[in-house]
């Protein structure tokens, strides 16, 4: 496994140096056009599950049926839903450690967390811990139907599994030489696609991309602000979000990324978008939404999201689902034309 010889830093940097005048005019025109076409109702927020302060939820994922879902959090918290996130059943693994992310694929489930902990389960079976070979914090995990699973964590840790999470090997990738200051960057989110390609986001604006099941990685984006969440749809459009209100968009499956203007400088943590162009971004005391695939963003005004934090997101037929502080799950209503 090796890094490509050429890092693709300039693309993002150049993007920032471009004149903003054409973008402004375009935005203005689009705004007027959208305004003429269809107004949308404010996104309402509904708390669908509540917990306690010291059991926040960090990760969420849904099966392909978008009905069965699972969310994980502090002190081994595992809650499940069978109705697209409308109702949740509490549960817990026997661990004092926090579970930070979860991935589901078919009957297979993997959850990762503090101190390199990884637990796996097939539907109906009990969760069992598997050896990860590390004590670093694992921040995110994802897998596809072929059994390719990737977990990422602190200090440029990338773990690869080709058997649905039973066994893991650490990627030899060293990112420090490619980061100013020679730091080992924390990696915060990963998306594994059905074709074996994958995206990882992390500190210093890093976006890594592989097309060969994690054997080789390209750095497709670097910057200053850390990126915390990524979601790219099968049509190739997607977003990465992070510190300082950073929202990046790709329309080519993650090969290139463009920085977007947003109405916030807050710390953004999670993102999800749907094929109809609706996108929702969660964060620390902020939530922003777009109805036009990220061309325009507007803040959600609601005390629940304006005074608390929400992280990972997903979308089901009931709306966008986000997990966060105090073990809460909220449903963000989809935009409906007025």
């Amino acid at each position: 496994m090796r890094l490509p010889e050429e890092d693709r830093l300039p693309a993002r940097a150049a993007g920032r140096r471009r004149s903003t005048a054409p973008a402004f005019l375009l935005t203005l025109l689009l705004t007027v056009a959208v305004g003429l076409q269809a107004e949308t109702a404010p996104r309402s927020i509904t708390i669908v599950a509540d917990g306690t302060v010291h059991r926040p939820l960090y990760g969420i994922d849904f099966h392909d049926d978008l009905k069965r879902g699972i969310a994980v959090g502090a002190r081994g918290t595992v809650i499940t839903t069978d109705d697209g996130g409308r109702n949740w059943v509490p549960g817990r693994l026997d661990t004092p450690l926090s579970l930070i992310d979860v991935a589901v694929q078919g009957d297979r489930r993997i959850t990762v967390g503090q101190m390199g902990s990884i637990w796996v389960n097939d539907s109906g079976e009990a969760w069992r811990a598997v050896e990860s070979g590390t004590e670093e914090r694992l921040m995110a995990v994802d897998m596809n139907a072929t059994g390719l699973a990737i977990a990422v964590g602190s200090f440029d840790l990338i773990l690869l599994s080709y058997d649905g999470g039973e066994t893991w090997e650490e990627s030899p990738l060293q990112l420090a030489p490619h980061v100013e200051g020679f730091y080992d960057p924390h990696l915060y989110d990963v998306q594994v696609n059905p074709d074996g390609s994958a995206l990882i986001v992390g500190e210093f604006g890093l976006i890594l991309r592989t097309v060969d099941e994690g054997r080789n990685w390209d750095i497709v984006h670097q910057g200053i602000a850390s990126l915390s969440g990524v979601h790219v749809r099968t049509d190739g459009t997607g977003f990465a979000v992070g510190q300082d209100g950073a929202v990046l968009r790709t329309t080519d499956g993650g090969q290139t990324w463009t920085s977007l203007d947003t109405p916030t400088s807050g710390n953004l943590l999670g993102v999800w978008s749907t094929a109809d162009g609706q996108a929702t971004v969660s964060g620390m005391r902020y939530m922003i939404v777009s109805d036009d695939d990220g061309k325009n963003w507007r803040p959600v005004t609601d005390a629940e999201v304006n005074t608390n934090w929400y992280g990972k997101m997903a979308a089901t037929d009931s709306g966008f689902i986000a997990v966060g502080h105090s073990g809460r799950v909220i449903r963000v209503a989809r935009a409906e034309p007025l």
Partner: protein
Amino acid sequence: MSRLRYRISHWLFTHRPMALLLIAVATLVSALGLPRVEIKTIFSDLQPTGHPFAETFRDHPNFGNPLTIHMMVKRKQGDIYNTDTLQKVWDLTRDVDLAPAVDHDQILSITTSKARYAAATPFGIDMRPLMDSTVPQTPAEMEEFKQRVERSPNSRGFLVSEDATATLIQATFIEHRLDFGETFEYLNGLAHAARDADHDVFLAGEPALVGWVYQYQTQMIWIFAVTLLALFAALFLYMRNIAGVVTPAITGVVSAIWGFGLAGWLDLAVEPLLLLVPLLLVARAFSHTVQYIERFYEVLHVVGDKEEAGRLSLRVMMGPGVLGIITDATAILLIALAPIPAMQRFALFAGYWAMILLPTSVLLAPLILSKLPVPKNLYSIVSRDLSLSGVHQWMARVLRQVAMLTTGKRAAYTGFALLLLAAISIYNGLQIKVGNPVEGSSLLWQDSEFNVAVRTINDNFPGVNTLELVLESKEGETLEKTARKAGPVHAMLALQDHMEQSAHPPRATLSFADYLSEGGRLYNGGDPRWNPLDTSDWATQAAATAAMMGSGPKAFSHVIDMRQQHSTVSLWYRDNRQETVDAALANATEAVNAVGLDHEQFRIRLGSGTIALQQAVNDTVQGHYWVIVGVLGFLMFALSAVAFKSLVAGFILLVQVNMANFVIIAMLEALDMGLDINSLLVAAMGIGVGIDYGIYLLARVCDEYKNQEGDFAAIIREATTTTGRAIAFTATIMLIGILPWYFLSGLKFLADMGLLLAAVMVINMVMALFVLPLLVWFLRPQFVSRDDLLVSERVDLVREAQAARQSDGAGSPEWGASSAAT
């Protein structure tokens, strides 16, 4: 014994100037101690010694320190984010910093540098005080301030209410410098001055509560003056002569000088709330003196000579008087069994006072009476002619009816009714709740400024009531910073989690681990997924370094000590009602057991804070109340059995007193007043009152035995209409004196105590007049016929008077051989 009584009375009357001089000198010496009497609250002395909660507080006073005030500034319309409100908070904070006895390191508000915010930025951690060196003036500055508050999880919710309409200023005071009255006057003045059309200011916390009690001290003294006036008025209306009013006044004043004098000489601080006990002791002096006066008049009516009447009545009354006073004093002194320093101090002071009624009421009263003019209404007072008009005859007529209910055929019905009452009272009495039945303080009325402040602050913030679970380091002698290690930090988190998952979760929890968790998040870039702390010492030490960056342990003194060894988990509760306290402690016990009490580096101590300290007092009251009642019962039984030379006598008195006690407790339960440290004191004094009544009445029964030729119906009738009348009178005048408390007092405590004392007087009177005669009637005890009782002296008054006239009072009477004539 009779010879001893004779000798004492003889010596006293033959050496009257000497006796008066001795009493005068003792009074003068005592009076010299009066200027040193201090009426003040010593907070730590109100906490029981040896109780694990109180000891935890003493060992770690910084954690959940109850000597903290909570001043809430509430914007009536809109939120606090405007220059006007923030300037007010700024000014108030700085003014609070000038309050007497304030700990300058323990002042917290959104305008102090201890209230900080931190945010992770792409360029590092932005950590600053919420407010810079001035109050925000422009809309941009205000918005920036608002954002900082939003980014400070330990300020939002704790210092600024969730709806942003209120903010808290907190300040802790140093106990040994604290004068509650002075500090409260200052703080209350600030609060009053800060109120305007747009703002309300509320003041709560223990210093404010004690301050309010201090404020009512003047009113309390006025109410007591009204009580004393009412007592004198009742005494005058009843006696209608000089001797009957002046004698109790002198004995009351002399005993007060002796009592307060001792407190002054021994530097015993008198708790302001317990000032009512000295008043009660004055009333007890009245009661004993009135018993004496009644008997003196009876003797005087027969012998016709004041000096001889004084000498003879002293001989007759010395036995029951001494026994009554000793049991009174014993009841009070036994309160010292409850290991609460303030109570023990008070038991010594009040017990001594009760004891000095021996020289003042028993010895001094006859000397005074023998020198005062013979009352013109003597005949109407002592006459058995019930056809006469007047209060004495009216009372005698009523009491004759009472006596008829306790003798003859009617006795069975009365007995059955009393048995029923006893059963109900015992059942209800055993249900008595110990503790605080209200939100805030039961010392003040629910609509009082303080209780309204407590409720309003509880409505806007986690509250003013905390339970502290202290993690005490075992590495005290080393330089180890135990509080930063993984073991204690994860124990804190486990305790918080356990409590939050419990059936009655606290409204909020806070520990040093929360700051570390936040420090770890910020240090790593601000993502909440960095909040969980790893289980290694390295991880928690790194998080602690991040959390304390730019500050020091002083900024965290509410959760760790200055050496970063001990720490606490603070749990906030909605109120301090007993059910809340019980649930909180039950859950905390479970949590501590689940996490483990004892660890290699630390131990967990349950607990401190207002919730635990309230329970510490409750436990002590509950645990010791029945011990005190039990020991007192045994002593009363033993003393009575010896004095009357009969176990049956001890049994009769015990039944009467305990029944009164159960009825009183059942009444407390029915009125939902609960048993607390104050009612413990009053209930114990109530037992003393009851036994007094019983002893006087039973002694009279013995005195009347031969006089009535063993006719128990006549004996009971005579005792009830004479000694019973004195009992009824003292109880009634106390009732008249105390009842105004309920209507006049700004202190609910005084009103409650007034109600309780009134009940004590009336219930004990009723039990003495019904239960004791009934038991005598049914048991017909042999001891009443004995001539050699310590408390009874049958004196042939006519013969004594003749002997006195012939030999100028020097002859020796024939003991017990003559028939009683009183």
